[in-house]
């Protein structure tokens, strides 16, 4: 039976409010999918709805203990591994050679495990006690920024998505993601992993469609605190940086060379988490 591919917003699989679609081609491989499937083409309104869903989930996700967030991401890794065959087949269907697809899924699972274990560690690496000159106790700690917009790399479709999203949510943020246009079906399949792994609805929201159409609205949106954009389209990255300046958004852009390194150890690390954290410094007098 052929499956309808939908976007993932607020924990539900939804069609675009615009009723538009894009057609994605690929060899049917093991699935029941036909040669051509219709995937929602997300709109500005979809992006805004996704921000509302993300915002609603933000405080709850940030308030969970780091240990709990770590367990949920580890559960995600378990689910991804249990569905490894399906993820592999989906990549192959989109033109990735079988051996590369296997490796991509393996690395993606490892990456989920990596960030699961990071949820309660980065704070200790980034916070400080501040030895101020005076009778004060002072410290600086890190906090999530809130809603982060992610423009996922087109390729690798699964590992790129996982590598962009997981450090953001490991840090306690929620996100609105524009999936890569090359292989949105794999992105939707990954959302099915999210939906069955205790990640609360709204923490990760994934839109399909054209990044050049959707992302500028996210870059301008005042409820979006930061933007992580992976794209080979240099003009789009520059435009997003400009759009983001209107609300002093934190922006990190990555070009194709960054995407090409994503499978290596350079594709993960503390820096990916740190980029989407704020530092808060707290002072209090000491005395009797």
């Amino acid at each position, binding site marked *: 039976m052929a499956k309808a591919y939908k976007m993932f917003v607020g924990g539900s699989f939804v069609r675009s409010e615009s009723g538009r679609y894009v057609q994605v081609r690929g060899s049917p491989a093991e699935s029941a999918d036909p040669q051509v499937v219709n995937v929602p083409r997300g709109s500005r309104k979809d992006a805004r709805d996704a921000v509302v869903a993300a915002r609603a989930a933000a405080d709850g996700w940030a308030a969970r203990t780091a240990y709990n967030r770590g367990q949920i991401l580890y559960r995600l890794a378990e689910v991804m591994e249990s569905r490894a065959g399906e993820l592999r087949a989906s990549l192959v269907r989109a033109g990735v050679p079988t051996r590369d697809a296997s490796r991509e899924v393996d690395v993606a699972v490892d990456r989920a495990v990596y960030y699961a274990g990071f949820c309660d560690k980065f704070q200790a*690496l980034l916070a400080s006690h*501040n030895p101020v000159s005076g009778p004060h106790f*002072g410290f600086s700690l890190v906090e999530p920024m809130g809603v982060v917009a992610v423009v996922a790399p087109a390729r690798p479709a699964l590992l790129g998505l996982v590598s962009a999203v997981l450090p953001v949510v490991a840090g306690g943020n929620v996100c609105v993601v524009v999936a890569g246009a090359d292989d949105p079906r794999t992105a939707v399949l990954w959302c099915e992993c999210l939906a069955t792994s205790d990640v609360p609805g709204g923490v990760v929201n994934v839109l399909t469609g054209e990044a050049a159409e959707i992302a500028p609205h996210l870059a301008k949106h005042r409820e979006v605190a930061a933007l992580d954009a992976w794209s080979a389209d240099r003009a789009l990255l520059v435009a997003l*940086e400009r759009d*983001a*300046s209107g609300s002093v958004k934190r922006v990190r852009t990555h070009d194709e060379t960054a995407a090409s390194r994503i499978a290596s150890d350079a594709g993960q*690390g503390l820096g990916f988490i740190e980029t989407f954290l704020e530092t808060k410094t*707290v*002072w209090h007098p000491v005395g009797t």
Partner: protein
Amino acid sequence: MGGEITKRKRSQDLAAPGGTSPASPERGRNLETNGVLEYAPAPEAIDHVRIAPRQDLFIAGTWREPRAGKYTAAISPSTEEQLAEIAEADERDVDDAVRAAQRAHEKYWSKSRPAERAKYLFRVARAIQEKARELAIVESMNGGKPIKESRDVDVPLAAAHFFYHAGWADKLDLAFAGRAWRPLGVAGQIIPWNFPLLMAAWKVAPALACGNTVVLKPAETTPLTALLLARIVEEAELPPGVVNVVTGAGATGAAVAAHPGVRKVAFTGSTEVGKRLQHAVAGTKKRLTLELGGKAANIVFADAPVDQAIEGIVNGIYFNQGHVCCAGSRLLVEESAHDLVVRKLKDRMALLRVGDPLDKNTDVGAIHSLPQLRKIEELVASGEKEGADRFSVSCALPRAGYWFPPTLFTGVAQSTRIAREEIFGPVLSVLTFRTPEEAVEKANGTMYGLSAGVWTDKGAKLFWMAQRLKAGVVWGNTYNKFDPAAAFGGYKESGFGREGGRQGLSAYVELS
């Protein structure tokens, strides 16, 4: 540098009626002193300070006239007298400075041993301490801030910033949780007029410690102490071009930010200019940090130690005439404590001494400039028009110079301009709340997120608040504390990046 004037002419207008300077507050409002507690004038002696009448650009280790030969006047805001003529750098001068910084980076600074870089910075810190009195006097003359603040806050903190960052120069391998680092190159740094020397120190010290070289653009109106810092850098024999100072107005700053040789732009100033800068830098791959405006909430619970809170509120908003990005300009008081807090606050405000910045008893100095004074007056008028109740300290103000009496508004609605817009002056808006949740919601209900204050006797409540306030600095039972070891910077439209602490270093390195 040509002839020098030896002494600043003291304005004859400065003394308030009765001959006291600074202007004495309205007497007998609350303390019946019968004049016994009148302060005699206590002017800081300035005879050993000489300000060169013409100030040039510091590029590649030499003092140079601007190519266009253009100079503008630096004015004392407390007397309106001209202090010096300041060179106005154009694009060609900026290009010279950036090239000098690039050469210095390639030739000397990136190749110098980290321990040697540290020694240079330690030497700069020492020289600031040696010249502390001169720096404090010039800062107060040029900026209008009380000498007790420039002497006890601005200058010692500037020295501390160099001393602190000096020690990082040879320990950076330990600073980034095992990640490799390298310097960025030339840092273009644009600083504001409210803390001219301190902001220069905040910017220059970490940049140099991390192996970058610097083109510094001081504020148009307050370049004098940055130029004295350049003199110190020269005397400390830093290699030529490691620090360059180009003076001028907004166009000079824009030229610094736009120069392709600049790899990092650091800006402190208004949110409006910060947004323009972020837009201009988009697509250049330049690193950017922004320290922008604020509208901080200073939150007082009914269980707070009231007298300490009053001191903190006064310090929070009237420090440096309120020309402070993190000023506690919105006072949120728990409703049951409102009347008590406002009464005590008014009593305390009546004792503030407004006047000559060079008088050691002065609490509140001159408003920085005429345009700033007009902006404050305009916003205060809007507050009255929007229905808030105004209270201004009744005190005699000097006739020359720019002055505004310490002011507060009660009955302020969250939607009014004085509750939302940064006034950047000695004007406090008082609002009330009933529950901690409401306090958090009101405090966070702004596009800014630089700082916040919380006053309560309950530790658990203080941390509960601190966790929920969207602000880069939270002061608990204190306010306006700064230290080079403590990161400072904003959430939301108050900017991004941190200055100070280990966290501030990452703005000046490329991590891999």
